[in-house]
């Protein structure tokens, strides 16, 4: 990629810090995101009510659930997979009030699964604080057959649905929570650059 090249659609992630002004806090974390939650509680125990939904293992088989149980003062829920976590997130958001601040830490896939769920409740993704942990693996949207390819770690990947070879672009869709994947060998079938792992 060209030096200095930068695309606005590509999300920038930060480290989680508590919002000073809030009525309540909701923290979602997966795998090594548990460490981001521990760091949050290192900053302070916020005065407002806190709820933490944590999926152990995540991408890197990391499990911070035992330590979290010692640190999180209330409302800590542990999950083995993210489907159930996202279901419970919906229940939580449906009874929440404006003033709730939302934080998420995990793989990019997890972050945008949470953001897409929150969007159903009118919460904009830019109002969610996000920390990327675990992996740089990308969710890739095949612009040809519309399939979602999860956990892509290479510059070029074969679409799991239509089997086209896709070039993984920097162009990110917040709506889909995925990077665009375009067929890499349209002009010269079978000819493309070496496949390398660059999103470990």
């Amino acid at each position: 990629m060209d030096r200095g090249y930068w695309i606005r659609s590509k999300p920038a992630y930060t480290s989680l810090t508590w919002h000073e002004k809030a009525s309540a806090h909701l923290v979602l974390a997966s795998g090594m995101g548990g460490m981001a939650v521990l760091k949050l509680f290192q900053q302070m125990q916020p005065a407002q009510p806190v709820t933490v939904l944590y999926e152990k293992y995540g991408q890197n088989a990391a499990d911070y659930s035992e330590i979290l149980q010692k640190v999180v003062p209330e409302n800590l829920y542990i999950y083995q997979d993210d489907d159930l976590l996202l279901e419970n997130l919906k229940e939580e958001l449906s009874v929440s009030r404006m003033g709730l601040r939302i934080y998420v830490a995990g793989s990019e896939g997890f972050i945008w699964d949470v953001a897409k769920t929150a969007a159903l409740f009118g919460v904009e993704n830019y109002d969610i604080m996000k920390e990327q942990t675990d992996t740089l693996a990308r969710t890739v949207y095949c612009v040809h057959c519309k399939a979602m390819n999860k956990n892509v770690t290479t510059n070029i990947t074969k679409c799991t649905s239509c089997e086209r070879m896709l070039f993984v672009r920097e162009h990110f869709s917040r709506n889909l929570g995925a990077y665009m994947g375009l067929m890499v060998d349209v002009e010269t079938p079978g000819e493309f650059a070496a496949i390398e792992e660059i999103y470990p």
Partner: protein
Amino acid sequence: MSTLNVKVAAIEQVTPLIKHFTFVNEDGSLLPAFSGGSHVVVAMEAEGRTYRNAYSLMGSPAETEAYHISVRKQENSRGGSVFMHENVTVGMSMKITQPVNLFALSKLGHKHILIAGGIGITPFMSQIEDLKMMGARFELHYAFRAYQHAAFVNELTEKCGDSLHCYADSQGDRLDLNELLSSQPLGTHVYVCGPAPMVVAVLETARTLGWPESSIHNEEFTSPPVGLPFKVQLAKSGIEVNVPGEMSMLEAIEAAGLQPEYLCRGGVCGRCELNVLENDGGIEHNDHFLSESEKASCRKIMPCVSRTKGKHLVLDL
């Protein structure tokens, strides 16, 4: 800036201090479409000077046969609202700008809380039409001094039903902002238009409760404050302009024959921003556009509402 030539089709005294004006296109054609929350700037050709004030469009965005504005006669008016009340008559031709929207509804919102104080009701008159068309959930909270001064209560009751909540100061009614804003479901947006203390109270309450900035919307046009007369030098034009106490710098520059850019003329939109080349530190920033640090640097100024108390001011115009 392209202007529309309109004719005053009707004038109605709505309350002792508020008049409702209906404009139609001078050539009889439809007026440009607009969205809820838009305003136009009305040019008033008074003796010896031109006033230009921004007024919200009140009618339904679906009906462009006519535009509707309401003007409250201001006690300490520089002349604009008094001109509208005393000099404008039915059949008169006037010039207005194309509609501009600096107070648009957030279409992604799941619920909308509209808070109006007094004449601040006007932008919501068109917004509720949009909300009803969208089928969106909303509440209108309307605070005023007394029912005799409250414009459009009957019309609003008809249109909003249970969604309208009125608060008459004279009856001791009080809008509890903390209670209102702490009990809203996620995805709610709040909009406020009214006197400055009310706007500040809504913004402060929402922020303290943890509402994100993206969910808080306000419209607060400042009318240019009266100040001391001063002189401003315009470097590119090579002229010096006298700004009288009751005229804004923008108006004085226009009176000198220049046509600088502008949109809202109320210190909100930022369009008329000018670079300050030299000054001796006396700038009075009255706008809501520049950041605190930009104001402190005194390198930029909004000529629509800001002035100087200093002796020396040179602008890049």
